[in-house]
């Protein structure tokens, strides 16, 4: 089986427990106005690889990953858009090395079946939460996020540990109102490990020109986003 891979990066330190190797999968159905990785959005781009090639690449340094309590993280683009490929890679890795841990970084944009099948295989989910409502997603990422909210609701009850990642975009979703909304959305999840507020990358626009695209995000990228913490209501026992 083949998939399209944007990059395999080793020694990634912010993608889960321990040092990890991150497999960035090519292609994303969303079009976030602030995406700093536009060359990863197109499904036709990247490099075609077989599940075996990806697994072999990871296995070369698996002794280090296992010895350090690390593992493999699937990111993107949107890794769930190539769910079958991700599962095939995991399958190969499991057969070669039983002690790797698996994580996925996802927008959550996938059918419920796909989301559940993949997440069930994970030791950790890095779940993007960009907005508390459909309107925010529709306006700024161009998709109908019903599936995202359904999947997040399921994740909260799934028992799979997860980290919520909120990209804080100045004037877009860094308002108190938006953050309170996200906090309400996440409240009551016993498996929520932490919430990470990721500041907008001011260099995000740099790559668009190279791709012959213009970058007009519709917000003031020079403003510093409000990174004040999100208050999550503790889970009712």
């Amino acid at each position, binding site marked *: 089986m083949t998939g399209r891979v944007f990059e*395999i*990066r*080793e*020694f990634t*330190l912010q993608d889960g427990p321990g*040092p990890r*190797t991150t497999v960035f999968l090519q292609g994303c159905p969303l079009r976030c106005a602030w995406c700093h990785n536009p060359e990863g959005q197109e499904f036709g781009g990247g490099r075609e690889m077989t599940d075996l090639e990806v697994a072999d690449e990871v296995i070369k340094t698996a002794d*280090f990953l296992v*010895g*350090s309590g690390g593992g493999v993280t699937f990111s993107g683009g949107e890794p769930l858009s190539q769910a079958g490929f991700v599962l095939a890679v995991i399958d190969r890795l499991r057969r070669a090395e039983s002690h790797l841990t698996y994580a996925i970084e996802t927008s959550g944009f996938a059918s419920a079946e796909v989301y559940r099948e993949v997440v069930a295989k994970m030791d950790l989910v890095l779940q993007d939460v960009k907005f508390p409502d459909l309107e925010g997603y529709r306006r700024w990422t161009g998709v109908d996020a019903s599936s995202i909210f359904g999947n997040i609701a399921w994740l909260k009850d799934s028992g799979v540990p997860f980290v919520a990642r909120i990209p804080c975009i100045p004037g877009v979703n860094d308002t108190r109102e938006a953050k309170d909304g996200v906090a309400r959305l996440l409240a009551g999840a016993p498996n929520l490990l932490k919430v990470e507020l990721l500041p907008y990358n001011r260099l995000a626009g740099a790559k668009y020109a190279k791709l012959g695209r213009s970058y007009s995000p519709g917000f003031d990228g020079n403003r510093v986003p409000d990174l004040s913490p999100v208050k999550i209501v503790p889970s009712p026992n």
Partner: protein
Amino acid sequence: MLGGVTRDGKCAFNDLSRLCLKACGELKLVDPKINLRVDKSTPLSIFELGTELTKEGLGFPQYANDDVVIPALTRWGYALEDARDYSVAACWEFLIPGCGMDINNIDAVNFVGCLDTALRIVAQRRGDAELSFDDVKAEFFAEIRRRADAIVEKYRHVEILPGPFVSAISTGCVANARDLCKGGRYNNFGIHGTGIAVAVDSLASVRELVFEKQLVTLSELVTLLDTDFAGRPDLLAAAKAAPKMGNADSRADDLAKELVDVWGHAFDGKKNDRGGVFRPGTGSAMYYVWHAREVPASADGRLKGLPFSANYAPSLDVPVKGPVSVVKSFTEPDLVPVSNGGPLTIEIHDSAFLEPDGVTKVAQLVKYFIDRGGHQMQINTINRETLLDAQAHPERHRHLIVRVWGWSGYFIELDKCFQDQIIKRVELKG
């Protein structure tokens, strides 16, 4: 030098070692440079203490692996108790303080030059019979041995100026009424080897281009080396795309194993006129700059005039997958016979330390190197943008410290050629 073992082999890392590491982190000075002796049994927490200094961007500690260095020294004839007492000369060459007249850095062999000579010899011989890659390899290794022999001859008679003060504080000199210049307990000569990675990459490229894919004949390749691949951008691209050391790719790493093995035994049985032995190593000192000027372009696609990497590190123009693959590749060879001193150098982008557990993760990388039988390692934290800004506005970066090779220094005080080399190193690993 901190950590390590006592003369009777007990762990010597103590509270004072810990305090020294902490104090260095607080002072943030270039000197004294800290070397930390570790081994397989060293707990991760000690690597973490060391990594706290790396995080500060001090360019040290440099790590030395007792599991490799002590057997290396005893193999060269050092008494076990003395070997356990080892320290480093100014940069990285291992020595025993107080009882040696070792000259750790007397000369060096240019591996890239050896391969260049070998390719020309083999290409000349063309027509004799069908050439094989093994012919190239055999000639290359023979050339390394020839140059090693030449060094043995060259230093038959070494006269050293008397050093009454050093003699007074060195073991045995006073008792024997003999100045150190006439020889001490150990009288060995250390020999550096430059351009290991460039030579390995070039060898891998010769195998792929000439013998496997047959894109070019050997004599055509030699001509291309003399003309900087003029008119053949396709072959230059193919050379650059051939396997490279540092990517956990056995097609290059197996050749590195062979080369290091040949180098490690090139001086076996040879003695200098003081009865000492020759200690081959993976260090380069300044030779990596001089030696790079002596050779034309190399088969890995390195054009004339471009430098080698310093010490034991991937070639400068090689995109490597990352530090884990680098460690893996560079610990494939048996490093005991080449432990004169000469570290693997790794650059880590300072974003590695954004999260608090970054220190643990980087410490795990160092431990991985030690556990896999690495001999010596220095790991630097660096940010390319900062370096470029420091070149443009030195006044803003008076305290920026970088590791150059054996030593750290203030970036803005360095010669431009060293500044550029460091920036180049970072571009590739960033």
